[in-house]
């Protein structure tokens, strides 16, 4: 069975600085998808970035980028130029290409200090 682990329950960053959130996963599949979702206090789940396992190039979305290390089964999220609105809970998620099931990590709460 696939598992996703986020080892940082809480992280803090100064506004305008850069922060990296860690995520590791375990799977025997070779084809899958990885996501980072953001959940602000409003409770809405918002997609931040996605990565297809077959792509070697790391995904980038504006200030958000990932470091995808397939052999190490690691998928970290880097947030550059952090803004107050980035404060939220961030979930790493694995999606099986066989079932489509999305499996979430435990989440990391990010605090952004002004």
């Amino acid at each position: 069975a696939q598992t996703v682990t986020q080892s940082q329950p809480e992280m803090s960053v100064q506004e305008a600085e850069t922060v990296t959130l860690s995520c590791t996963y375990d799977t025997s599949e070779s084809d899958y998808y990885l996501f980072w979702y953001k959940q602000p206090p409003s409770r809405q789940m918002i997609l931040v970035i996605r990565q297809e396992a077959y792509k070697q190039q790391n995904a980038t979305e504006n200030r958000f980028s990932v470091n995808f290390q397939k052999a190490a089964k690691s998928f970290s999220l880097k947030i550059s130029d952090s803004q107050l609105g980035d404060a939220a809970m961030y979930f790493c998620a694995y999606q099986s290409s066989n079932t489509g099931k999305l499996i979430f990590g435990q989440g990391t709460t990010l605090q952004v200090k002004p």
Partner: protein
Amino acid sequence: DTAVSQTPKYLVTQMGNDKSIKCEQNLGHDTMYWYKQDSKKFLKIMFSYNNKELIINETVPNRFSPKSPDKAHLNLHINSLELGDSAVYFCASSQAGLAGHLNTGELFFGEGSRLTVL
């Protein structure tokens, strides 16, 4: 125009009651899901339907019964509510991704329905 909408947003009820949460998506997606987020914010899949057919049924008590009248709707009915059922329930939908894969791609989530069982 909300893509995935759930009703009600909040639900407070007594133990032993039966309640339903409704979900509708207007994205034309084939697959819909129910996720449960517990008090520790842990998100776990409960069910998944693809074009009205049940494809994922995790270890969920029989008191929980999903119903999909059409591919745009997936409702969740819970019988004999227990204290441990208190949680936020999220509905989500997604569109099939690459050819040959059952379903891969971004999940679009509703705003969640907070259920409190007293």
